[in-house]
């Protein structure tokens, strides 16, 4: 994985300064309406301020009311600040993207048959369907598809990866992105996006959160929080007649304090920051989600469709075993296999040299005067000829015909079929006209992948391996990697059908793909991760784009989705659990004058009724800023199974949510008391 352009510190000074300014701008009630809990807090703050000022004007001393009002305003500000910080981090990333979008001059091609005849045109004036010529060191003016030529393109502006990639017309690598740079050769590109809606533009919009819409779960949570707010509003407003009856004079600041402490301001203030931070975590991971809904769905995924090559295996077959025929020493076979592979520069050939070196300590060197027979796709073998040595290694039938052997010994054919049954590729090794044995080339499963799949299984996620290999090979690798299911000899239609089948069982599926023929499956999947290196069609169909084009990241994407949901749930639980202790702080305080006996409920031994109420309000405000780092960083996901995870989080955020305010409120009260503030 490559790191995106720059890592942004959790609290970057510039971001904080900008966020502080934005936080004030966000106080606009029309903007705050989107967030019912904080909106109510603002109204209450306004009311308390008015009452405080009125008392001051009338000379009745409004110090307490105004102090409460200040902290209520701070509660609102802290909430808007949390959102502004999260947005600021996104904006900082967007800035680095925006630098790539400069006003370039494009070379507009008028006649596709004569690409070298072009007219300089500002990139901003390009239309969909226009053809442009892009030559070495030119910036590609807009998103498009290569219609002619081949070039290496530096896409670091988008991916952060500095190694250039090859782009060519036709096939799955024909899409280019505006803002990237051609570093060699030339291409003719057909523009596929209007200005303002290019990939870069959309990425900037997504990263900045401008297009942020509430996700389904956020909407549901908002309803819950709004419902709780109304319930507590009813409880506090009706306390007026109950208090009236009880001859307990309840003043506005006191009721305001009670209400704001009871409504879930903590989660209300942090909810959007958590969502933005979740998207941001993906971006840091070089994955762009086109919607928050996709990130949420990632947490819910039940099945992962993983391409075998590159995700589960290294992608190249490697030497993994030697099976000599009777009468041949294993070491001799190894030596001959190594010698015959000197002429094989393919990854497979190199893996044989490495295998022999690691296993037998043999470093093969060509003897004086030897002729190397290089590997070719036609002969399907390689070898070495030297005086007295004629070794060959290659596909079984090629080697057999090369040494003119019509029927191989039984032991040899047995070994060949055994290797094939295990899903590996058998190669034959010969010396002179003698068959020495079989060399096994195997798709090597990545070392830690089995553990990762086991972890996924503990999370309740099934892994499905997708491969073009035949069933035997596929099953062998599947067993070794520990996947739950296999789609062998997979065509794009098979993938689509499999996804539909799994979805019909009510499961959510994630997959990644890059080719145009992957597009239907990407669109059908609940989480479709398109590779940045893929075609435009694939990128349009997916709801996430991996800028590193690394299919293994699907697993991390799921973890990031889960992390987002866990953070949201934990802070909701924490916020609601906080209410219990706030009752113990405020209720005895507000009724103490009417019923002195209620002082017994002041179990925290808070100094005075005023300091008790003020301490609760202060705690309620500063817990929001205190939790901003947690909201932005997210709560770590652990693959320990849902039961264990729930126990752990419920203990920390549920019981912790009940206990924390007792300590916090008491501490604040002690500070107020030591400064003789309202006590």
């Amino acid at each position, binding site marked *: 994985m490559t790191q995106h352009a720059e890592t942004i510190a959790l609290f970057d000074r510039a971001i904080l300064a900008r966020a502080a300014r934005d936080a004030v701008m966000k106080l606009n009630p029309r903007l705050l309406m989107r967030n019912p809990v904080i909106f109510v807090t603002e109204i209450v703050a306004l009311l308390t301020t008015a009452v405080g000022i009125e008392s001051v004007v009338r000379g009745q001393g409004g110090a307490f009311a105004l102090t409460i009002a200040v902290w209520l305003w701070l509660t609102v500000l802290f909430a808007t600040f949390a959102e502004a910080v999260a947005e600021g981090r996104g904006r900082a990333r967007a800035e680095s993207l925006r630098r790539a979008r400069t006003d370039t001059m494009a070379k507009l091609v008028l006649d596709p048959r004569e690409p070298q005849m072009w007219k300089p045109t500002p990139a901003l004036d390009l239309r969909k369907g226009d053809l442009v010529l892009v030559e070495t060191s030119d910036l590609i003016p807009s998103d498009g598809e290569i219609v002619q030529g081949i070039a290496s393109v530096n896409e670091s502006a988008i991916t952060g990866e500095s190694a250039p990639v090859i782009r060519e017309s036709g096939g799955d690598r024909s899409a280019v992105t505006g803002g990237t740079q051609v570093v060699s050769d030339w291409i003719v590109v057909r523009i596929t996006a209007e200005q303002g809606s290019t990939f870069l533009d959309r990425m900037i919009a997504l990263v900045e959160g401008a297009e942020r819409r509430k996700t*389904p*779960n956020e*909407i*549901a949570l908002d*309803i*819950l929080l709004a*419902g709780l707010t*109304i*319930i507590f509003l*009813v*409880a506090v407003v*009706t*306390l*007026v*007649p*109950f208090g*009236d*009856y*009880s001859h307990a004079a309840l003043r506005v600041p006191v009721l305001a304090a*009670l209400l704001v402490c*009871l409504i879930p301001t903590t989660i209300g203030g942090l909810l959007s920051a958590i969502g933005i931070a979740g998207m941001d975590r993906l971006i840091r991971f070089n994955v762009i989600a086109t919607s928050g809904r996709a990130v*949420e769905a990632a*947490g*819910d995924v*039940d099945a992962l469709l993983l391409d075998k090559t590159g995700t589960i295996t290294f992608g190249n077959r490697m030497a993994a075993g030697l099976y000599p025929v009777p009468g041949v020493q294993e070491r001799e076979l190894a030596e001959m296999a190594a010698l015959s592979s000197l002429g094989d520069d393919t990854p497979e050939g190199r893996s044989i040299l490495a295998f022999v070196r690691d296993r037998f300590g043999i470093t093969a060197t060509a003897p004086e005067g030897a002729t190397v027979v290089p590997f070719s796709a036609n002969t399907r073998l390689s070898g070495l000829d030297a005086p007295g040595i004629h070794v060959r290694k290659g596909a079984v039938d090629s080697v057999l015909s090369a040494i003119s052997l019509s029927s191989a010994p039984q032991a040899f054919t047995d070994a060949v079929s055994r290797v094939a049954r295990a899903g590996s590729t058998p190669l034959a090794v010969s010396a002179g006209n003698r068959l020495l044995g079989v060399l096994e080339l195997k798709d090597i499963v990545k070392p830690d992948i089995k553990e990762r799949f086991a972890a996924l299984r*503990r*999370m*309740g*996620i*099934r892994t499905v391996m997708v491969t073009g290999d035949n069933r035997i090979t596929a099953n062998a690798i599947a067993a070794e990697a520990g996947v739950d299911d296999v789609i062998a000899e997979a065509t794009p239609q098979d993938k689509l059908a499999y996804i539909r089948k799994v979805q019909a069982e*009510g*499961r959510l599926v994630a997959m990644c793909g890059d080719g145009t023929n992957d597009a239907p499956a990407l669109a059908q999947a609940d989480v479709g991760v398109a590779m940045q290196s893929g075609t435009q069609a694939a990128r349009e169909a997916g709801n996430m784009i991996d800028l590193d084009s690394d299919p293994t990241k699907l697993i991390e994407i799921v973890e990031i*989705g*889960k992390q987002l*949901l*866990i953070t*949201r*749930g934990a802070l909701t639980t924490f916020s*609601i*659990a906080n*209410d*219990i202790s706030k*009752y113990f702080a405020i*209720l005895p305080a507000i*009724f103490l004058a*009417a*019923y*002195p*006996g*209620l002082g017994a*409920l002041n179990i925290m031994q808070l100094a005075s009724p005023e300091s008790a109420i003020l301490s609760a309000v202060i705690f309620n405000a500063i817990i929001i800023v205190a939790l901003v780092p947690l909201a932005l960083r997210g709560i770590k996901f652990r693959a320990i*199974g*849902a*039961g264990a*995870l*729930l*126990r752990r*989080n*419920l203990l920390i955020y*549920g019981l912790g949510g009940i206990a924390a305010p007792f300590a916090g409120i008491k501490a604040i009260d002690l500070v107020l008391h030591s400064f003789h503030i309202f006590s």
Partner: protein
Amino acid sequence: MTIAGGAYIALIFVLVLGGAIPLGLYIARILQGEVRFLAPVEHGVYAVCGVDPAREMRWQDYVVALLLLSVIHLVLLYAILRLQEYLPFNPQHIGPMSPRLAFNTAASFTTNTNWQSYAPEAQISNGAQMFGLAVHMFISAAAGIAVAGAVMRAFTSSGLQTLGNFYVDLTRITLYLLLPFTIVAALLLVWSGSPQTFAPFATAHTIFGSVQKIAVGPVALQEAIKEFGTNGGGFFNANSAHPFENPTIWTNILENWLLLVIGFALPVAFGRMVGRPRQGYALYGAMAIILIAGCIGAYAAESHANPLHVAAGISAAPGNMEGKEVRFGIAASTTFNVSATGTSTGAVNSFTDSYMPLAGAVPLFMMELGEVTPGGVGSGFYTIIVFALLSVFVAGLMVGRTPEYLGKKVQAREIKLAMLSVLILTVFILVGGGFSLITTSGLASLANAGPHGLSEMLYAWTSATENNGSAMAGISADTPLLDYGLGTAMLFGRFAFMIPVIAIAGSLAAKPKLPDSSGTFPTDGALFVALLIGVIIILGGLQFLPAMTLGPLAEHFALFAGKTY
């Protein structure tokens, strides 16, 4: 607290929790249409009523059927109460009820509340008791269980468009569950001394030579369904403290068992219906833990003698015996009372108004929690499902998946409806209670001042809104404000709660049922039980804490400081 008292509480719970299991399995079979021993009767009912038993209802149809039945019965009962002097079985020649009291009473019995603003002996005839009130005790109970059954079906499979047939459910529950048990229980009560007669009075000659007329009537059957259907409306004003309703400690145990057992049986039935017994037992466990805690708490608080009695030298040794039947004692009184408020029964065998403040707060709090411990027949079950959905929603995200309960995703629509139903209860209790305390007509109803008066008024509105019917007493409830106000609260508390719940069931039923995996939020273990209890207390009870502080809590501290109101 005594060992005998503790043993009594333990006995009740062993009998109830043990008996609920086979009963729950039996109810599941009834709801699934497997119990048909009275098939000819059933078919006769369908034929007479023109019901097509094969017709499956969507949730909207289910609501319409329920409302239609309830409206017709509300009107019918109102008519009976207004016209009772012209109807048969009125040997006492009792005149018509006033319109507002008849409305209040009709609303009360249609909603399974059984709030009684009237004195039965003087204001209602034997005929009206039998054909008006007792009939509604069956119907409203069966309607509640039917809705619970519809909610259970929503979780059984994927993509369901229908929730069953309301009329079929109603008929089967009445025929196979309510009637047989009620008849057996009534016989046991008759055997223990409860009257079941059409005679208006028993005449007794006292040792001083005077003649006393003692009200009797068809008591035993009404008493049985009163408890079994969590109704609570007594044949007599003194309710289960009256020796004809509840003659002995044995009938007291029987009645306590009857009023709790269906509530605990329904989650068991649910576990059976969804094929996952442990899921049902988790709900059953949460209900039991809160109820047992309430019973022990009330018993402990009531075992304290009233300090003012002690000071006056009139304290009885076991604790506060004021307002209690000597034949029951403290444990059997508090347990009955907490059971009757933990369910929506509201029957009493002792006088709640005379309880120590904290002991009186327990029944009040049990009602405020939303009647889920185990709640009214049917209503307790569907209410705890609402809380289970909210629990899963709040904490479920903490396992890293969007929330689901029994494979059904909990989304905006369900949360909206769930919050709406919780809000309805809060609004009626607090707005009604608060308003009554600042209006002259409300204040005029109060017999006590100070926090005790506040508790009485809060209790009345809570009892009505939560469809309990228990009265703390101490207020004159037959006033225009309270008759109409509480009557409206009962109707909203029942139907404005039930309709969103059926809508939730309809919405969940249509969703695909997702298969469980190791990443699924476990809702069948101790952890979920603890979470559910926490959510019930925080979302169901906490909003009432400020008002409670000014009522029972303030009174408690004042009383022990020697101050009365």
